[in-house]
């Protein structure tokens, strides 16, 4: 029966102990622990949300990058094509110009050659004329040194003139 009768001492001490433990733990333990757990839970929730957001952003970024890459490729192809066209055009132009130039040079050269040839011919004619005159002079001098010869030549000349 004594088992069922509460002792005053233990009633008293249990009440004090519970009160003390409640206030000590509430002040120094529970609040910090509850706050710690709550903070961690919100932390984790936020981290997951952020990760999800970053994932979406990454996906967005990736598709953007791909679009950019495609655009860049197209642009490059266009540029290459244009460059090729320009090159071909330039080569053709240069060729044309070169041909023209060459033709002009050749023409000029021909004119110059012709002129020089004519000058040379004139010069040659003059010189030949001179030579002929000199030689004729010399020959005439020699031939006409004696009288008989002179008379022969005059005859000859006179014959020739008559024939003409």
């Amino acid at each position: 029966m004594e088992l069922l009768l509460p002792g005053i001492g233990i009633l008293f001490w249990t009440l004090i102990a519970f009160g003390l433990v409640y206030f000590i733990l509430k002040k120094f333990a529970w609040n910090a622990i509850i706050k710690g757990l709550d903070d961690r839970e919100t932390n984790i929730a936020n981290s997951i949300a952020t990760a999800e957001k970053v994932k979406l952003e990454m996906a967005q970024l990736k598709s953007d990058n791909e679009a950019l890459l495609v655009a860049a490729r197209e642009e490059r192809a266009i540029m290459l094509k244009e460059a090729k066209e320009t090159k071909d055009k330039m080569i053709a132009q240069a060729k044309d110009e070169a041909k023209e130039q060459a033709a002009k040079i050749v023409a000029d050269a021909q004119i110059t050659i012709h002129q020089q040839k004519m000058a040379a011919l004139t010069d040659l004619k003059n010189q030949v004329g001179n030579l002929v005159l000199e030689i004729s002079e010399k020959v005439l001098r020699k031939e006409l040194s004696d009288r008989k010869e002179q008379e022969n030549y005059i005859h000859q000349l006179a014959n020739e003139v008559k024939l003409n």
Partner: protein
Amino acid sequence: MVAAFSLFCLHITSPVFAQEHEPVAHESAEAKLDPAKIILEHIQDAHEWHFFTLGDFHASIPLPVILYSPTKGFSVFLSSKFHKGHEIVPYKGYEMTGNKIVASDGTAVYDISITKNVLQMMLALIILVLLMTGIAKKYKDGQGVTSAPKGWQNAMEPVITFIRDEAAKPNLGPKWKKYFPYLLTVFFFILINCLVGLLPGSANVTGNVAFTIVLGVIAFFIILFSTNSHFWGHIFWPPGVPLFVKIILIPIEFASFFIKPAALIIRLFANMIAGHIIILSFVSLIFIFGEMNLIAGWGFSPLSIAFTVFIYFIEILVAFIQAFIFTNLAAVFIGQAFEGGHDDIDGHADPVIL
């Protein structure tokens, strides 16, 4: 654990072995083995912490006695003052009869001694406070908040979140934060005392009716201060029932208000004391058989120890279950006290009581 537990029970062995050694001389003087008396002595409070008796040597720690008498005021002394050799003697006008201290002149005396139960409770609570403040400090330092929890945090965290998610939140709704420190304190208060009470040589604190009465009365007042008009309306004028049913229902409902905390008190007390009695009974069986026949005693001991170990594990489980049931039911009763208030739409949904 078993070895230590046997040591705890050594003083039971001493009369038996003493009988074996000097059967003739002590036959008449030696009291018969009385397991019921021994068990009851074990589960009761005491003014000294008795470990074992070996022959004439009593291994026990005397505990301080604090008495208040309206005529003589306070007196504080060690319980060993009542012992002179093997005699129990009066001291300062007080006498010890069994575990009770009474005044020799028959006047009223209030015994608020630091008894075995009180001392053990205090030691257990110091462990609890150190443990919890240590964990709290870790959380304050950011351990477990921004990094993984460590050590005892890992052990306590699931328990704390379990109480939060199973007892506080479902029963108390949006007000759970207000009652959560109380629920946690009750849970760990009961748990640490149950577990320390299972250590060999320790006292049966949670199986003491005074301990559970205090917890029950605290729960009663918390329920009382949580009540709202809706709750009292349901008790004194149950809606939707005929008048003659009301006449029957009102006393029942009103009584239930007191029965709820009383049930908490009795449940915890009965569970814990039953566990201790069962363990002690299995151990005592060895000595009951041993008294009949030494060989029977030794022969029965393995079976008895096996049962004891089994019950011991069950008791560890029971410690957790009882602490949780007390906490959960306290939460349920508090929740009932303020349910159907302004924030409750239908206001007539009764929560299921376990």
